Structure formats: C-alpha cells, structure tokens
C-alpha cells in the first residue's frame, strides 16, 4: 500500500481508538501494555488493509442528530411493537414494501438497512443495488417516510449528498 498523508492520519486515529479499546478491556492495568502496544499496532495495520481510508468526514453534529433520531424512533416504535406482542388478540397486518434508495452505493446503504432492521416495526429482507425490501409489522405505517428520514439523517452524519431524482 502506498503511504499517503491520509493513510498516516487514519493509522494514528484508528490506533488511538484501538488503544482506548485495549485500555477499557484491561481496566488500564499498566503491565498489560507490553502486549497491548503490539496488539494495537497490528490491529491498526490490519484495519488499514481491510478498510482503506475513505475520504468521508463524519460530522459530529450529524452523529448526534442521528443518535437522537435513533433513540427517539426506537422508543416510540418499541412501545407500539411491544403492545402488538402483548395484547390479547394478535392484530398484525404485515406486508413487504420496496423502497428506492437515494444514498450512494457502498457502506452507507448497508448502514441504512441495518438501521431499519433495528428500528421497531421494520425489518430489512433484501438489499439489491438501490432497492431495499422491508418487511413491516403494520402495513398502514408510513414506511417510505421513515426510510426517507433515516436516509437524510445518515447522509448528514456521513457528509453524503442524496441522489434526488
């Protein structure tokens, strides 16, 4: 791999994260760093091999807004789905919805599919190209609007532009 400024920055940044991880896992025991520094160096090198630095910029405000959105949606939908499970009569009306994505190809679409799976009421069942298939518990819920909001939040977090056709 060519050594570029971006690679060095990514190496230092990821190394710091791995060092923090090691510190947390070992409760900061000083004697552990003899092994830890080697492990951190190898982990950073391996991460650069497996996921080369990409020129995306994660916005901190975007990350915060995404987290607020995720927690809010989770709680709101979670209560609804818990009620579906606990009410005496099962009154589900499941359906499959297909939604066209505006996010660029790559890891952001996978992140969106995973986000939709974790949010209560929707479950990703297929991701092919720019089509995302969702299984929903309540056919009358505004699924497409929910996907659009999640998409917008993700794009803001990763500094991506949406393809609005």
């Amino acid at each position, binding site marked *: 791999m060519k050594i570029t400024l971006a690679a060095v920055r990514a190496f230092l940044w990821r190394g710091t994260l791995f060092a923090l991880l090691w510190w947390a896992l*070992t409760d900061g025991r000083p004697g552990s760093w003899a092994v830890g520094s080697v492990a951190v160096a190898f982990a950073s090198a391996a991460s650069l091999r497996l996921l080369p630095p990409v020129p995306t910029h994660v916005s901190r405000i975007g990350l915060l807004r995404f987290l607020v959105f995720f927690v809010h949606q989770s*709680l709101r939908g979670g209560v609804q*789905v818990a009620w579906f499970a606990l009410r005496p009569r099962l009154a589900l009306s499941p*359906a499959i919805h297909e939604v066209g994505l505006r996010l660029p190809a790559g890891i952001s679409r996978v992140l969106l599919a995973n986000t939709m799976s*974790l949010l209560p009421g929707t479950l*990703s069942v297929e991701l092919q190209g720019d089509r995302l298939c969702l299984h929903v518990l309540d056919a009358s819920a505004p699924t497409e609007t929910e996907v659009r909001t999640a998409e917008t939040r993700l794009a803001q977090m990763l500094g991506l532009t949406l393809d609005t056709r």
Partner: protein
Amino acid sequence: MTIADWASLVLLVAGAAFFFAGTVGLLRFPDVYTRLHALAKADNLGLGLVVFGLLLKAPSAALAIKLLLVWLLALAASATVGFLIARRARRHGIEPWRAGDAE
C-alpha cells in the same frame, strides 16, 4: 437511594419489560419475519435500557466503555444476522404471513 439509583432502577425495569415483550412476541408471532422483529427489538431497546441503567452505576470509565461496546456489538450482530435470516427465508420462497391466514 439517590436520584441516580432511582433512574438506574427505572431503566433496568423498563429494559426487562421490553425483553419480556420481545420474548412473548417471539413465541406468539406467526412466522419467521415477524419473530425476527421481536428479537431485534429486544436487542435494541431491552439491552439498550439495561446497559444505560448499569452505566449510571458503573464504578469506572473503563467499565462504562465496556458496557457501551457490549450494546454496540450486540446491535451490529442483531441487525446483520436478522437481515441474513430474513433474506435467506425470502430467497427460499417462504411467504410472509398475512392478516387472515390461520395462526
């Protein structure tokens, strides 16, 4: 009891309630897709509330980071595995249960 103790207690009980609802859903829901919904929700909300309840009582920053990591890893695993099972089921032609079908 301090306010942190009470908040922690409330979060732990709420987390347990979501785990309970998720388990009931897993047993009662009619097909593989709807059951996966129940599982993913227990991981996200149930575990999330329990982790945040325990965070309030974490004795050290290292332990707090470990707790958050447990939640994040469980979320990543839950979302990925749920998606893979659902996709496999769909490619095998398992039709989703619809309202009106026999339970």
